[in-house]
């Protein structure tokens, strides 16, 4: 029996000019599961993610998050609904310290979309700071706390961004190629990390190229090709699906 459905994408269509980027997408993401979306370049993965996060509006169809329609909602409203995205190219606050980078999303969780707490000293926000430090240590960034975020390595920036997502305790975390451009040992480290998060029962959508990452993390995999879902199932089912092998892997053995 399937568990609670967190995110339900229904009949989503999106065209850019003449290009059919997404065609009749239907997806259901179960609570506590890690759902991977894979597909060749240009298959529409990023478009799908952008639709979920409110950056793009689909031509037709709905995106329901915990029963609420997300279409037309502003990015900050979607964030407060509990859906948080970790970007593919690290989107951090390069001019702030690593600690501040994580404190800002923690503040978002506490203060809401707007709060005028201009005269309250930062020093009195020890709870926020403690939480940020905790998350950073958890991700192995403890030693960088007072570093300038902009001058970190790319791998560290990506981990920092993950920390920024995790500190908000999202009910759904969307990860856009979390290991792209990472060295092997960094990739393995990130996989371990994501596995640990998985044990805590956080629902995740992962878009990923690296099959090693996908098959070590995903409970369920959907395969996109030319804007359509051509297969959907458990890793084992996908591995054995000839349609997937043809479309995506060019017949190569997984």
């Amino acid at each position, binding site marked *: 029996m399937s568990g609670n459905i967190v995110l339900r994408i229904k009949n989503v269509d999106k065209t850019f000019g003449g290009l059919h980027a997404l065609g009749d997408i239907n997806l259901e993401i179960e609570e506590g599961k890690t759902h991977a979306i894979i597909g060749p370049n240009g298959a529409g993965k990023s478009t799908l993610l952008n639709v979920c*996060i409110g950056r793009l509006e689909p031509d037709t169809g709905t995106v329901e998050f915990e029963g609420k329609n997300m279409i037309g909602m*502003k*990015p*900050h409203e979607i*964030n*407060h609904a509990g859906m*948080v*995205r970790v*970007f593919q190219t690290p*989107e*951090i*606050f*390069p*001019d*702030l310290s690593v600690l*501040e980078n994580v*404190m*800002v*999303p923690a*503040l*978002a*969780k506490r*203060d*809401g*979309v*707007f*709060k*005028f*707490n*201009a*005269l*309250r*000293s*930062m*020093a009195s*926000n020890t709870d*926020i700071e403690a939480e940020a430090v905790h998350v950073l240590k958890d991700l192995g960034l403890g030693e960088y706390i007072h570093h300038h975020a902009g001058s970190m390595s790319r791998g560290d920036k990506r981990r920092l961004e993950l920390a*920024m997502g995790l500190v*908000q305790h999202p009910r759904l975390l969307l990860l856009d190629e979390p290991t792209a451009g990472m060295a092997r040992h960094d990739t393995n480290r990130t996989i371990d990390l994501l596995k640990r998060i998985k044990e805590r029962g956080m629902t995740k959508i992962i878009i990923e190229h690296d099959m090693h990452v996908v098959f070590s993390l995903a409970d369920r995999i959907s395969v996109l090709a030319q804007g359509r879902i051509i297969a959907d199932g458990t890793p084992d089912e996908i591995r054995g699906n000839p349609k997937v092998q043809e479309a995506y892997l060019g017949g190569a053995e997984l």
Partner: protein
Amino acid sequence: MPLLKNDWVVMAIFTAATLTAPLWLSPIGAGYPDLLQKFAIFGIFAIGFNILFGLTGYLSFGHAVFLGVGSYTAVWSFKLLTMNVLPAVIFGMLMAGVFAVFIGYLSLRRSGIYFSILTLAFAQMSYNLAYSVLTPITNGETGLQLTINDPRILDAAAEGVAATGLPSTTLFGIEMSGYSGFYFCAVALIIGFFISLRIFRSPFGLKLKAIKSNQTRMKYTGFNTRPYLLTAFVISGMYAGLAGSLMAITDPLAGAERMQWTASGEVVLMTILGGTGTLVGPLLGVGIIKYFENIFSALNDNALHQAFAILPDWLENIVVAIAGEFVGEGWHLTLGVLFMLIVIFLPGGVMEGIRRISGWIRGRSRQAEQAPAAEATGGE
């Protein structure tokens, strides 16, 4: 310097420094009330501008509007209500706040250079209107002045008798001229600095810095950035309104030229010169510019000839001829050159210079400390 992390320590130092300014500034010839008052007023203006530009990165090229609005409102308060400066200052700030809400609401719909142009357009409109159609309110080119026939309702009710001659501004009976005028502005500066300090070190301030760093990310982090920006804009406008009304206290006259875009440019310049986004940078910028403006614009060729008297005559004449272009009327030339040099070589302003120097000194002393230590442990 962990002590400086404590707001109260910072405020104690700042308050002491401000109130004793007449003493420690007199050796360099700046210890007289007129100039001190100028420091304080432009200091408030720049601190406020820095809350917007320094924290959010939005470069307003029309901030002088609020200065002008503050001045006009204060003079009207003197004319209609009372010569007491307190209501004048309060109304000046409020009116500037109202203008800031309106201008900010529209301008903040765009960012980058579009924002700058929008603020500039609003400033130019206000300036042009103040000169032409709004003459009944602004008294056009002459500027708004006090007259003997002004109603001054509250004063009239209190005294009952019309005084002879133009009254002067007071604070509950204390005349606002000379040092009392300076101390009134100084107190306003201290309060203004305190609020700015708290904002810089508050969660609100951190969020503004985050908006400056990456606004898009801020939206995906769950913040609605527009109200944050508007709040910063309005606070900043109210600082300018306060500064404007304080100008009217020194000299109860308000002219449209206070709103001209060159006046807006000046505050940008002072903030950048000192160090944008730092707490004391803008104040340093104000101090440097207003001090040298005072000195340089008073200099003339005679003074220069005296200064360079040691040189041989022919050289003296050349030096004076060149230097002469930069003083007196030519002060603006100095200002332009200074401005360019700062932006080219030290975009972080004087504060960055100080940071670099202190970093260099610290680096050297650390090296000196580490060298023997490394030898003792046999190096790393």
